Every structure is written in structure tokens, then in C-alpha cells.
């Protein structure tokens, strides 16, 4: 890639403030300006502890996807909502859906004829030598040709109309329970805000998810499909979310030992005897899903499940093998996928990315470490990364050695000027950097609820929104103009 984003932050490191532009309140936030300014400090801290108590009571204490950290720690909730106008959202929605379509087309293709590789649009080795490429599903077409049924797309904003995709999550993106709970708690604490503003609802997400899962039932399934969520168990950091979603959808939450394979199907043990399961929303990694196909010593999976899946007796969402589309090295090629499969120009931008595996890119990265964000190709959660502008000289030099040792393990991106959203802090209200993860559902149709999970870097000046690094969450509004 040609390094064209040098000094992206410009001469003055100005950040786009989503609420105030040149001192004036931007229209999407007009409905809450008074509410925020007029709130007495005592009332605010009272509400803040009320919110915390509510979160504790419902038990939502898990970490967001792959972030690690203490699973019992409460992620701070900031009551100041993050607001989008309907027209801003429409563009985002089109961009997110476009991306979800292209990612699924890519998955169907690389497990089929591999046209995109033959056309030379993506290097074969990035696809077929990728650890997440599953030989076991080559040639298998899942119902409706969908591999990734829940696509979580991490976005940041740098200007009024400028959005960048940081990464795609095609396997089991978590955090959607925060989107729902944040809204629930805001409505409970500030009902008048929801009376005064026309805020698009997100609470139909579980219904849409349920419909999406049901729409990819295997052909062999007659009548209403039986759905279940397969969880690794209560020790998993996202267990709360698994049980929450099962509850909201009115479907069973099962562990591997609750399921078994017999004949052409997968069955669930119930008090009324075995019941056939048609669609499994699994929150277990591929490697653990079936000891007869993957890791032989996995105790979490269901022996024989992959055979039932591949002979059309059960659907698994997301489909095993979906991870090859959300690899950080494959990410670079998503705009190509959009052009190749959809014949469209990408609506959302990728962040320019340097691959340290390439000589020219590596040289540029090593020469500009102080300005760049460097990440491990397979890492996640803000661990093992370098934020150049926020690092000391010693930290940069230590990181330089790590990159030189194994360049192929690193990619680098410019330090993006992440937008800020007003946030309640000890001193009052102050801007803090935010990102956004919307959850796109792909089945018979493609659906996106107007909202998502906004994460906020609570530390002043910090650009790292991960909850393991001091991040919090906000309710995300799409408001009628």
C-alpha cells in the first residue's frame, strides 16, 4: 500500500466533537442539551449509582468479545447518550449492510469455486493458508448461502460524514446485550427523555435475531424450526449474554452435554424426552464444536455435530469457517470484495493498513512508529498493540524489536482522530473518544436495528475504548429529525 495517510491528524490534532461544532450544538443533540446542562450534580450521581445498582442486579458484568480481563467486573455505564440523526444513520446502515453482504459472498465463494482468488483480487495464501480456513466445510453450501449471520462491524468516526471500519467480526460478536440493557436502563431512569425525543427502538433485536435464525433452518426441517443457543458454559465471560439472548428469544440455552447426535439429526435432552434441534446459534469457537471433526479432546462440543451439519440435518450459526473473513490481514481486501461481488463502491472506508510482512510497508512502519497504531494480526482487545503518539520512547523501541523479530505478525494503521461524545466525568461533562459496533443480521433478509454498542474511552485523551483498558459503554440513539 502506498503510505498516503501520513500525518492524518493534520497540523492541529483537532477531534470531531459529535455534539458541539464551533461552539454550537449539532441538531441530533438538541433534544438532550437542556437535560444535560440542567442536571444538578447530586441528582446525576444519584442516577449514576442507580444505574450501577441496576446493572449489578441483572448481573451484566462480562467483558466484550475477546477482551479478557476480570469477567466479574462491571463495565462503567455512561448516562450521556451517543446520538445519530436519521440521515447519518441511513448512510451507516447502507454501508454496514453492504459490508455484511460482501463478507458473506466472500465466504460462500472461498468455500466454493474461489473466484475472487482466481481473479487475483486477493492472494490465495491469505485465504487458504489462513488458520481460520476450514477444510472440513469446503464445498458445503449452508442454507441461503449464509456463513456469517451476525456481523459485528467496529466503526470509528473522524468527521461529520467520515466513518472508518476498524474491523469486522463474523464469528460470534458479543456485546449486543449491552445495547439492549443500556437502552432499557436509560428508559427506566429517564422516561421523559424518551417522551420528548423520537428515538428509534432497538428492542425488537431479539425478534429479528430469532427470525434470522429460523430463516436458515435446513431444508430437511419441516414446520417451525427449533432453535437453541450453544454456550461453552457459565465460566465463559459472555455467559450472561448467552442466557440473556436465549431468554429474550424464548429459546433453550444448552451446553454440549445437553445435545447429542443420533441418525440424521441433532437432539436436545429435555424433561419430555429428546427434541430435534434445527438451528444452533453457537457461541463456541470452531475448534471446540465437535471432537470428531476438530480438537479430539474438546469437552464443550457435540460429537458428530459437524457430520449432521454437513449432511443438512442442522444449521450452525455462524457457520464453521466464517472466521476466514474477519482476519486482520483479509480485512484489507474487503473493499475489493465489495467491488468484486456487488459491483459497488464501498460506502464505508477501511482504515489504510500497512502489512509489516511486506518489505516496503515494514520500512515505512519502522520509520514512523511514533505516529502509528501497530497491532498483532491475530490479536484482539487492545492487548499487544502500540499506540505510537501515546507511547514513550522506550516503549516504542521495545515494540520495534518485537516487530523486527516477526514482521508478519504485525499490521499498522494511522492514528485516527476518533470523534468525541460528551461524557459525564467527575468534573462535569467532558468530551471522550467513542467507537461503535452495530450488529447486522443476515438470513432471508439483511436487518440492522437502529443502534449498536457505543464504547467510550473514559480516560481523558485516551483513544483505546476496550473495556479491559478503561473503556465504558453508552446508550446509542438514532433520532428522528
Amino acid at each position, binding site marked *: 500500500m502506498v503510505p498516503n495517510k501520513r500525518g492524518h491528524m493534520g497540523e492541529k490534532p483537532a477531534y470531531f466533537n459529535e455534539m458541539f461544532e464551533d461552539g454550537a450544538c449539532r441538531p441530533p443533540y438538541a433534544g438532550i442539551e437542556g437535560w444535560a446542562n440542567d442536571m444538578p450534580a447530586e441528582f446525576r450521581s444519584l442516577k449514576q449509582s442507580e444505574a450501577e445498582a441496576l446493572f449489578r442486579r441483572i448481573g451484566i458484568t462480562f467483558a466484550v468479545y475477546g477482551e479478557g480481563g476480570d469477567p466479574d467486573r462491571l463495565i462503567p455505564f455512561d448516562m450521556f447518550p451517543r446520538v445519530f440523526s436519521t440521515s447519518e444513520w441511513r448512510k451507516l446502515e447502507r454501508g454496514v449492510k453492504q459490508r455484511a453482504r460482501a463478507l458473506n459472498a466472500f465466504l460462500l465463494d472461498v468455500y466454493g469455486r474461489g473466484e475472487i482468488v482466481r481473479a487475483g483480487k486477493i492472494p490465495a*495464501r491469505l485465504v487458504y493458508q489462513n488458520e481460520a480456513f476450514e*477444510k472440513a466445510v469446503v464445498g458445503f453450501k449452508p442454507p441461503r448461502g449464509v456463513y456469517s449471520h451476525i456481523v459485528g462491524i467496529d466503526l470509528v468516526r473522524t468527521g461529520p460524514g467520515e466513518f472508518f471500519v476498524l474491523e469486522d467480526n463474523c464469528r460470534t460478536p458479543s456485546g449486543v446485550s449491552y445495547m439492549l440493557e443500556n437502552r432499557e436502563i436509560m428508559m427506566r431512569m429517564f422516561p421523559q427523555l424518551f417522551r420528548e425525543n423520537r428515538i428509534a427502538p432497538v428492542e425488537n433485536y431479539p425478534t429479528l435475531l430469532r427470525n434470522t435464525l429460523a430463516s436458515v433452518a435446513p431444508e430437511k426441517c419441516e414446520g417451525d424450526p427449533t432453535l437453541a443457543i450453544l454456550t461453552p458454559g457459565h465460566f465463559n465471560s459472555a455467559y450472561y449474554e448467552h442466557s440473556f439472548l436465549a431468554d429474550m428469544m424464548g429459546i433453550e440455552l444448552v451446553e454440549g452435554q445437553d445435545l447429542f447426535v443420533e441418525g440424521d439429526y441433532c437432539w436436545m435432552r429435555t424433561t419430555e424426552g429428546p427434541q430435534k434441534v434445527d438451528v444452533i446459534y453457537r457461541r463456541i469457537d470452531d475448534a471446540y464444536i465437535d471432537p470428531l471433526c476438530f480438537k479430539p479432546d474438546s469437552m464443550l462440543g457435540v460429537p458428530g455435530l459437524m457430520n449432521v451439519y454437513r449432511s443438512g440435518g442442522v444449521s450452525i450459526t455462524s457457520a464453521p469457517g466464517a472466521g476466514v473473513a474477519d482476519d486482520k490481514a483479509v480485512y484489507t481486501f474487503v473493499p475489493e470484495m465489495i467491488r468484486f461481488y456487488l459491483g459497488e463502491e464501498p460506502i464505508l472506508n477501511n482504515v489504510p493498513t500497512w502489512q509489516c510482512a511486506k518489505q516496503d510497508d515494514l520500512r515505512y512502519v519502522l520509520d514512523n512508529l511514533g505516529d502509528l497504531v501497530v497491532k498483532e494480526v491475530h490479536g484482539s482487545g487492545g492487548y499487544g498493540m502500540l499506540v505510537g503518539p501515546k507511547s514513550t520512547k522506550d516503549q516504542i523501541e521495545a515494540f520495534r524489536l518485537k516487530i523486527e523479530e516477526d514482521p508478519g505478525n504485525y499490521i499498522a494503521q494511522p492514528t485516527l482522530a476518533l470523534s468525541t461524545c460528551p461524557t459525564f466525568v467527575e468534573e462535569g461533562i467532558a468530551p471522550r473518544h467513542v467507537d461503535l459496533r452495530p450488529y447486522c443480521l443476515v438470513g432471508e433478509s439483511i436487518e440492522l436495528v437502529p443502534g449498536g454498542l457505543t464504547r467510550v474511552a473514559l480516560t481523558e485523551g485516551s483513544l483505546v475504548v476496550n473495556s479491559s483498558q478503561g473503556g465504558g459503554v453508552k446508550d446509542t440513539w438514532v433520532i428522528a429529525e
Partner: protein
Amino acid sequence: MKLHVSHSTRYAFDPPMRGVAQSLRLWPSTFEGQKVQRWDVSIEGGTRGAGFRDGAGDWIETITFLGPVGEIVVNVEGIVETENRSGLLKGHREKVPPMAYLRHTDYTRPDAEFKIMAERAIADGKTGLDLAHHLSSLISDAIKYTPGETDPSTTAAEALASGNGVCQDHAHALIAAALAANIPARYVTGYLHAQGDIAEASHAWAELYVSDFGWVGFDASNRACPDEHYVRVGSGFDSIDAAPIRGVAQGSGTEALSINVSVVEAAQQ
């Protein structure tokens, strides 16, 4: 050549298991030089699941047993017509891109020894089919066919270090050497109509992907490429992935395994 295969696998569980699930990869396919005339897999008890052909071209079925399971007997019997194609796998229907086999598992991880072996071979100017043959004979030289010295959990690196092994070790080691030379390689299971000293009727070897030729079989145990004496059944990354029978049993009992295989010329019966 017309080969008659009969293969019986018996599992005895003591005490009986609560349940057993098995994935079977026991059906040879038809391609140039191999024609399946008749093939039966019979298992007493249990419930068979729908079969399917995977991307590598293997037919797979599931069988499950509800407890108490004291014994499972899997009987395979059939007749396959074979011709010598010098190890070349032609006309075999499969969809997995060869490059997907450029990855190692715990069994086939190339350690420094394999890397040195591959580097030297390449430095000697070996390429293509020549390089594949060369690596295969290097493995034959480095690992002496010695039953009883290794076990099913022995890795390629361990077998190479010990200098002894059986067909599984030769296949794993050749895959490791091939991967070190950036050649896609995989583990193949099948049957051998044995004539020489090495009487492994239930056999395993490796296939290496050579440009212009495609997949080519190499049996380092016999210093040969598969010919009309071989019946090819299935493939995978390693012995676990390619296993003819892969099973999981629920229970705390011990498992005793006995296998009986015979491969004879059908005309002689």
C-alpha cells in the same frame, strides 16, 4: 489387479460405556487406477446417520450407540480393481485447494531437523517431482521400519529423532519434510496387498502436491509409490484427521481394540 479386502475392527469396553459416537471414513472412492466393485460396511447395532462426501472427496457417515455399550464391531468387506499409476492420483473428485494443506498439526510440525533436510534438498537443486521423491527417500533412510518403538501419539519430530517407526510415523515425517519445503502434503489411509517384509495390510502413506502432476502418493515405509497393490480410502492433515474411524465414548471404562485385516487377490479365493 482385483483386491479383496476384509477389515474387522472390534472395540471392547470394560465396564460398558454410556454411549459412543463414531465418524466413519471407510469408503474408498473410484478414480483412475482404482475402481470400487463392491464395498460393504456393516455394524451391528447403533444408529447410522446420513452420509455425505466431504471437500476432500471422502464419503463420511456417523454411527451412534446408546449405552450400555460393551462391544462394537465394524466389518468392512469389498472388492476393488486396481491398476498401477505410479502414485499419481488422477480423476479423483475433490474441492479442497492444495494450498489448504500447507499447514501443520501437532503431529506434522516440522522442527529444525526437517527444515535443514528440506533446505539441503532445495540447495542441491531438487525441484518438483524430483524433490518429492528425494524427500521420501530421505525419510525412508532416516526412520527405520521398526514396529513397537513408537505409538499412535508419536509426532513426526519424535519419530525422526528416534530413527524408528511404522507407516504412520513415515507418513507424518514425510508430511513434515514436505511442509518444510513448502510442498502441500497430506496423510492417506488405505490397504496394502503386502508382498515384502512390511506386512501392514491396514496402511498409511503420504500424498504430496507437485505442480504439473497433482497429488502423488509416497510410501516411505516401502520406498515406493502406491501401485496396483494399494487401495486408497481417505485423507486428512494427519492420522487423526484422516482416521478411518474416529470415536468419542462417554464413560470411564477402558477400551481394548483388536483389528483384523486381510487383503488378497480376489481371483485366488
